């Protein structure tokens, strides 16, 4: 096959272009540390990476949701714990007055104590997390328990929230409730006392019985205190169970997050060692190509003709 000067030169130029193209690609990988820099570099990897990124964004959101849910539940737990203490104190007071010691001064101070305890229970029922009342069902914007004063000098405590449970997403397609409604915890359902112990009503009755110095009525109320304590304890274990569920959700999402980061990195990141090795390899090849081209093109018949 004949080889002409222009052939030699164009082959040389074409080869150099190809080498430089390879170098440019490697340099891009080295600069961005990604082996995929555009969808056409690897369309299948692109599909995978984009899908994974979407899942990762969702996972981060679930973790944030779980954090907020946990905060609500913690707030509820501490409120319930305080309510438990209050009921304990009221129970002690009731027991001590059940025998009807008849001391009017004691009766007055007990009455005032119960009045305060009832107010405390109502205030605890109106616990907020941020701007939301956590025991009001959907009525998070206003206090679920009314604080108007009754005839007997105590706060009303009528529940005007809803019975709905607020849910948050903790995983794809799975949501978890994060609240307890005040009507079931403190008022025993709607109407009060229908599905459980009406704690507020119980305290109100105690207050009225003390004011009237009716020790028989006080006696009749005593068994209710046990039930009230049980109700609060049951509510606390419900909160505990929900916190466990959230925690399980959290650790699952966290492990998903770690896995995803790994897989995305595997699909997307360039092996820097490999890239740098190939880069220096290609440099050497380019140098060799340039040097040999220079040498070959210098010789011709002219050098040998006189």
């Amino acid at each position, binding site marked *: 096959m004949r080889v002409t*000067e222009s052939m030699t030169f164009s082959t040389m130029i074409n080869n150099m272009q190809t080498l430089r193209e390879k170098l440019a690609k490697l340099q891009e990988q080295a600069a961005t540390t990604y082996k995929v820099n555009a969808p056409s570099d690897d369309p299948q990897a692109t599909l995978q990476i984009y899908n994974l990124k979407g899942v990762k964004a969702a996972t981060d*959101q679930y973790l944030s949701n779980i954090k907020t849910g946990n905060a609500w539940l913690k707030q509820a737990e501490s409120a319930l714990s305080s309510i438990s203490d209050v009921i304990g104190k009221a129970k002690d007071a009731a027991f001590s007055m059940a025998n009807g010691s008849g001391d009017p001064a004691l009766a007055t101070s007990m009455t005032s104590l119960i009045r305060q305890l009832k107010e405390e229970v109502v205030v605890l029922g109106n616990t907020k997390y941020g701007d939301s009342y956590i025991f009001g069902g959907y009525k998070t914007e206003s206090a679920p328990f009314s604080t108007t004063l009754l005839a007997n000098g105590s706060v009303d405590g009528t529940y005007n929230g809803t019975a709905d449970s607020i849910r948050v997403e903790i995983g794809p397609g799975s949501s978890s409730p994060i609240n307890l409604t005040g009507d079931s915890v403190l008022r025993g359902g709607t109407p009060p006392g229908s599905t459980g112990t009406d704690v507020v009503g119980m305290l109100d009755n105690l207050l009225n019985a003390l004011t009237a110095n009716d020790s028989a009525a006080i006696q009749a109320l005593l068994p209710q205190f046990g039930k009230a304590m049980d109700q609060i304890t049951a509510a606390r274990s419900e909160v505990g169970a929900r916190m466990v569920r959230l925690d399980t959700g959290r650790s699952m999402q966290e492990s998903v997050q770690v896995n995803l980061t790994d897989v995305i990195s595997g699909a997307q990141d360039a092996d820097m060692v490999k890239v740098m090795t190939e880069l220096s390899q290609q440099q050497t090849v380019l140098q060799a190509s340039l040097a040999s081209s220079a040498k070959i093109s210098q010789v011709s018949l002219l050098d040998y003709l006189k």
Partner: protein
Amino acid sequence: MGVSGLLDIAKSALFTQRMALDVTGENIANVNTPGYSRQTALLQTRTPILSSGFPMGNGVEVGSVRRVYDDFLQRQIRLENGRYGEASTSHSSMKRVEQLFSEFGTDGLGTSLSDFFNAWQDLSLNPGGEAERQTLLVRSEALVDRFHQTATYLDQVRLEADRSLQGVTAEVNQLTDGIATLNQQINELEAMGGEANEQRDSRDSLVRDLASKVGITYLEQADGTVTVSLAAGPNLVNGSRAATLSLQPNVADPQMHDVLYTPSGSASSTTDITSILASSGGELAGTISTRDTLVPKVMAGLDEMAYTLATQVNTIHSSGYGLNGSTGLPFFTPPTAPVPPATFTAGYSGIGGISVAIATTADIAAAQSDPTAAGGGKGDNRNALALGDLRNTQFAMAGGVSTIEGYYALLANDVGMTVQGLNQAQTQSQTLGNQLEALRQAGSGVSLDEEFANLLKYQKAFEGAAKLINASTEMLDTVLNMVR
């Protein structure tokens, strides 16, 4: 025949060797001329004459000056040029489209979509919160902006493809005119004998250039002219007449143009050959397929994504309640009804299509029952939950059944594969083209070493002829001196 016969022979040798030297000189001078085929002077003996009863040689003459030309290679090169022109044109346009779907260094439409759904989930944690509602509106605006930007850019790529038609058709016209002129010149020159090598080289070069603009076939006629036709039929060059291509605004979409074909001489019978050109190869095919097939496919995917997102969000949103009891409000401006058989509204992803229809934060419907009514409250987050969960719902769209974010990934994958395929086609064509050109050079190219050797050869022969003249002159002198 006497001594003068010898002089005659020497003279023919002198002239012939000098002509051969001319040809060699032409080759050396044109070593770098693109498209030049080396020429060889074919020497042959002159017709012998009878002398003293038997035929005697009469010297040498140049039989013809032949150029080294391989028609098979020319046809192959023409094909590859057409393929390369098509692939490279489409590739450069689609590479720009690919930038829109690249989320490797920067955030794109995919990130905006994720942020949008996340904002609904943040709202579900605090439905009454002003900050969460504000954030949701901001992110929705950002999402809509991205849709608009992408759609506008795609439109621009289409427009630019259309504008480049102007330049390409002008070049085609120029080339066909050139070929027609050369056809005439070659015809006239060769009628007088010999071969018009330089003109043929120019014509071959023009044909190769034309092939990269539009797919053509050609046939050499008996009179030396070349008939060039489009791969799909109509004649571009016939003898010394060339057809012309022109542009005319499309009836359905005045911003785009159709390519018209006017046969030479009859300015009235123009035909619309846009659809033929799309499958003919060359830059014209690449440009037209970019404008009419490749980019519109991406736009349709984008429109379908925006349409599905808007209609699904609107359905859930309008059944929900805002903070002040507002209901029945769409979140995005509802799209106009799709024109069958399409299942989505074309152009919905552009400006004038999708946009956020909610202006006040209180109108965002996070609740499923009226918060101002008796049984409801601002903590009702069921609608916000449903909207946040929309990211996990699969919808049947043209590309397959997938979630909205998944559909975006499929679109990016599609664009990536198209660009990858075009890149491979382009590289292959380029490599093949280079190899074919090298083969052409191997046959038709000028090798300086060879020409220098030829130079020596003819120069020595010239010296020999000169010596012959010297000898015959001396002989003539001797004869003349015989008679004193």
